[in-house]
């Protein structure tokens, strides 16, 4: 089972904000973490992650800094700002509402079957 693109896109912002809430991180590590959290079911691409990070930076939810790692390399680290923390809280509230509503229409979590329309039986 792979999660659809739309759902990945919809959950992208809270996912990145949530991971950065664990501590500052950089692109590759964030992708690794997502893969780890979802058991490889969430199909993220670099084309989704980096523009999203840049957008969050532009909106002020995250800030970035270049730090040098081994050798000549520089790595761009991202960390959550106060506004990012607030945004994450807001996103969590919204997601909680969605999940709560879904739980109510999917009682028990057992197998589902199509119910025929009335009068068509």
């Amino acid at each position, binding site marked *: 089972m792979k999660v659809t693109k739309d759902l990945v896109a919809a959950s992208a912002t809270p996912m990145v904000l949530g991971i950065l809430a664990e501590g500052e991180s950089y692109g590759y590590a964030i992708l690794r973490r997502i893969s780890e959290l979802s058991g490889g079911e969430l199909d993220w691409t670099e084309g989704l992650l980096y523009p*999203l990070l840049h957008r969050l930076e532009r909106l002020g939810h995250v800030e970035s800094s270049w730090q040098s790692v081994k050798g000549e390399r520089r790595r*761009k680290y991202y960390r959550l700002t106060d506004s990012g923390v607030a945004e994450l809280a807001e996103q969590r509230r919204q997601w909680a509402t969605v999940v709560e509503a879904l739980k109510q229409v999917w009682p028990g979590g057992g197998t589902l079957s199509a119910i025929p329309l009335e009068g068509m039986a």
Partner: protein
Amino acid sequence: MTEPDGHDELETQFAQWRQYAERRPELRKADTEELEDHLRGSVDELTGLGLRADEAFLVAVKRMGGLDDLSREFAREHSERLWKQLVLTGEEDGSGPDTRSRRDMLAMVVCAAGAAVSVKVPELAGIGFDDDGGFYGRNIALFTLPWLASLLAWRRQAGRGVIGALLGLFALGALAANVYPLAESSQSVVLTAIHVPLALWFVVGLAYVSDDVRSSRRRMDFIRFTGEWFVYLALIAAGGGVLTAFVFGTFEAIGISPEDAIGQWLVPCGGVAAVVVAGWLVEAKQSVVENMAPVLARLFTPLFAVVLIAFLVAFGWTGEGIDIEREALILFDLLLAVVLGLLLYSLSARDPLAPPGVFDRLQLLLVVSALVIDVLVLLEITGRITEYGTTPNKAAALGENVILLANLAWSAWLMLGFVRRRTPFAALERWQTGYLPVYAGWAWVVALAFPSVFGYL
């Protein structure tokens, strides 16, 4: 394979990838660096799993997906990057301020300020704008072009020989503009006012090519520079007009008359400074913005070709002679100059290795029809000159016509060869760049010799 070899190979692959990614306008240097770090993380992980370095690289690149998709995603977030910006302060990519462009800017400010001050200096000697317009008309190039030439020579770190030549030529220009006893209303004073700036523009050209005076490519660059400089100057002039209108309107509204401030300070000082600023802009933006002059040339070549051919057809149809007025020769000089400009700026933007195409044929058609028209005009006008004797104006216009005609005739011949794949494109380019000193020479002859030859008419 030994380990260091694999490592070197990997570095080459990364270098190639970087080069490839940096060509994307959507990706800034910082983005490529970030993505490269990602790629390296991926490669490290894969080699840790036991893959060879080159295999790991291939897999990592494959995982990242095509650069096309990636840049499309980046473009969605950074759409402004597709509008190439003339970055005045250097890219803010954390690599520190660009000291080179900052020093250039400082030099530009000094030169522009120098030009603005120099245009006000004669006033200290009692030569005001209102009393002696002729003086400023003759000398306008001397208040501006030496400063522009200094900026260029400074940027190119011109040698002593070139600097000496520049100083000497500007001094000669100052002599040509001021030593002859020319009456305000004489023809020669107008000719001087036109030809001294032309001659001195080629001195600016010398400063421009000072790092490699004989190179045909550098001369072509100067032709490009001239076109772009002109476009920028026109844009700055338009902006300056708006500024002037606002200064006038706003101060007038509170009962202060700004006429003096505008006429004595804003327009003259701003105007001469604009010449330097336009030159600096062309140098600064060179590779950042698409050159405008070739775009205009492409746009107008077909239109001019249609007009000229229509003129020839109408001329043949009516069978009437061309009515040569006094101004006609100058008009046709300008026509040849425009056709030459269209030709030059199309050449300047053309890929020298591309095979001849439809546009080259169109251009040949344009040049040939201009030549035919000009020959008709010349036949008409030489009769007149021999009949009524010559004046400085007629001699200068005729000389220019002959020079342009010679250039275009040989250009047409070379273009014909090129379209028929007999002559290489480079021959056409070399002909044009080699011809530049001829224009400079003629401008100097008119500026220096004409007044005395024609008895200060």
